[in-house]
């Protein structure tokens, strides 16, 4: 693969990651957010596949299949089952969409500023894309803080996780395979657990608005 094509593919996949994150911040429909999350998973798997192709390692190609299966198919499927169970698909975030998008833009700028001392002025396409991973982490935090529904917090957690995975693949072409396997399993289990807890919440409180959780405090 020519260097030019490689750089373009890295930019394309990383750009898709950032775009989907911004769209998740913007959209209020949970179903749309889950679909966007699936697209983000595909972009991440694509990024890994491009890296694997460039470095000519079979292991990375296997990892990209793992990422595709987990983040583009399995997790969105689990999430959408939960979302489809409810008639109420709307999220009412604490911030209106415009303010959220401005915050997301600020966080992306912050990510670029934070990354400068580590990355220096390289022309390496992977190093130049690292701030996008950090931006995803920060946007994940934004979602966790500003959203009220249980399912949206889950989506925020997964965006954050995608961001960490992006940083891992771009800076170190991924962690060792056994750690990658363990980490994927952990994420899957956490999502399943939160899913069960959401179900219990639905039964107990008749909704999944996290503002209902205010009994415990000092």
């Amino acid at each position, binding site marked *: 693969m020519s260097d030019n094509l490689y750089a373009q593919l890295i930019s394309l996949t990383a750009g898709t990651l950032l775009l989907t994150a911004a769209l998740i911040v913007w959209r209020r429909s949970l179903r749309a957010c889950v679909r966007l999350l699936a697209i983000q998973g595909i972009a991440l798997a694509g990024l890994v596949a491009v890296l694997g192709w460039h470095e000519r390692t079979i292991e990375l190609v296997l990892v990209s299949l793992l990422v595709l299966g987990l983040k583009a198919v399995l997790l969105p499927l689990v999430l959408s089952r939960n979302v489809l169970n409810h008639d109420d698909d709307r999220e009412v975030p604490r911030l209106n969409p415009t303010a959220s998008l401005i915050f997301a833009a600020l966080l992306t700028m912050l990510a670029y500023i934070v990354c400068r001392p*580590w990355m220096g002025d390289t022309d390496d396409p992977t190093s130049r894309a690292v701030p996008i991973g950090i931006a995803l982490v920060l946007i994940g935090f934004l979602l966790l803080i500003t959203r009220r529904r249980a399912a949206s917090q889950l989506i925020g957690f997964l965006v954050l996780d995608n961001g*960490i995975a992006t940083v891992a693949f771009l*800076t*170190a072409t991924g962690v060792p395979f*056994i*750690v990658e396997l363990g*980490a994927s399993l952990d994420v899957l289990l*956490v999502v399943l657990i939160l899913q069960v*807890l959401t179900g219990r919440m639905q039964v107990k409180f008749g909704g999944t608005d996290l503002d209902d959780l205010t009994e415990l405090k000092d």
Partner: protein
Amino acid sequence: MAAFLFVPLVAALVGAAISSFNQPAAFRRFTGIGTSIAILVSGIALSAAALASHVESSVTGLLRADALSSYMLCVIGAVALTATWGGIRGSGTADGGRVYNALICAFLGAMSLAVLADNLGIMWVAIELTTIATAFLVGHARTGRALEAAWKYVILGSVGVAIAFLGIVLLYAATRESGSPTLSWLALDQGHLALNPALVKAAAALAVLGFATKAGLAPMHSWLPDAHSQAPAPVSGLMSGVLLAVAFYAVLRIQSIADAVLGPDLMRGMLAVGGLLSLAVAAALLVGQRDYKRMLAYSSVEHMGLMALGAAAGGVLGLTAVLLHILGHGLTKSSLFVVSGRIQGAEGTTTISNVRGLLARRPGLGVPFLIAMVALLGLPPFSLFFSEVGILIAAWTRGMGWVTAIALVLLLVVFAALARLTARLAFGAPEESESVDSPVDRSSHGPRTPLIIALSVTAVIAFVAVPLGSLLLSAVAVLSGGS
């Protein structure tokens, strides 16, 4: 001897399997105790090997037990034995304790894996597994409050630990830059790798921030009092006694790597701030506390803060005191949670003002509670006294004078608040009607032996130079870049 590396993990798997599949419920009650004993025995065997300067590592190099890991394994085993044995009656539920016991075994196995892993990544996976195993244990009561506690615990725990993973990833990137990609403690600790300081700085800060969330250090502690007050008592004992300590063990390991590359300033600053904030939060929320389980939870925040101060001070005295504190706090706190579970069972409430006069009305519960509180308050001869003094002296002599002074004031507030609450619970005048009707309840509401053993051990360990003292010193040597 290398087989002992696998004994805790295999025992946990077998325990979990027996709990979930086997028909006779009689076995099920003992799986937690069996796993704890297996962990304790392996810990002692591996410690003996480490003392004979023979570090056990598995063939694949993923598991390794130096003096520090072996010591932590002993702590996990001892505290788990106290909590599971002491809490053996508290697990009767609709499914016969099937899920409960299986999750307890999985939890113990995950903690053992976390301290035995020689690979930062594996350790991270194991620590995340502890969150997964305990999620349903926290939500076990199935009430709205338990659900709320479980949700907050899983979200904050996973997000915190995810941040730590970002740190680990950056550390891995740094080793990759230096030409030999590795996540092994052994390779990282020696300081031979020429790591990029800017990258290590970011990595260590993120990793410590993440693991500190799991260790319950302020300002990321908000999940802790909720989870500890809602979980069944033995689970609270395990979480407070060892889970926090295991997360803190990760902080200590990261600190030793960062110190080797960057010098001590970064970690010292972070840990000192976290420690003081934890003490302040505990002091502020203990003063007006009304719930005795939350009181114990905030006391855990206080003790984690003290350990953070000790780690910030560093040096042989500071680190030895921190490690001794981990054991003393684990045994004392797990006994206290076990007793508090029994009090809750007998009285049906966790509000302090509704329990008054425990010593006169229920001496079987009041006496162990009072003794354990005396140990927790840090009075001699209990080991917490010596480790607290050690931590404060280490901080004072190593140039943290102001920090020590503030910490002392905050500790005094915590001491006064805890003493007042304990006095109210144990001695306070019982309500008129009750004192007339009800006869004195001398039952201990569960086995006494584990509490007696745990508290006696806490009372004497500070005086045992051999083998505990030598084990602690070799564990400190591991953290100081030796071995």
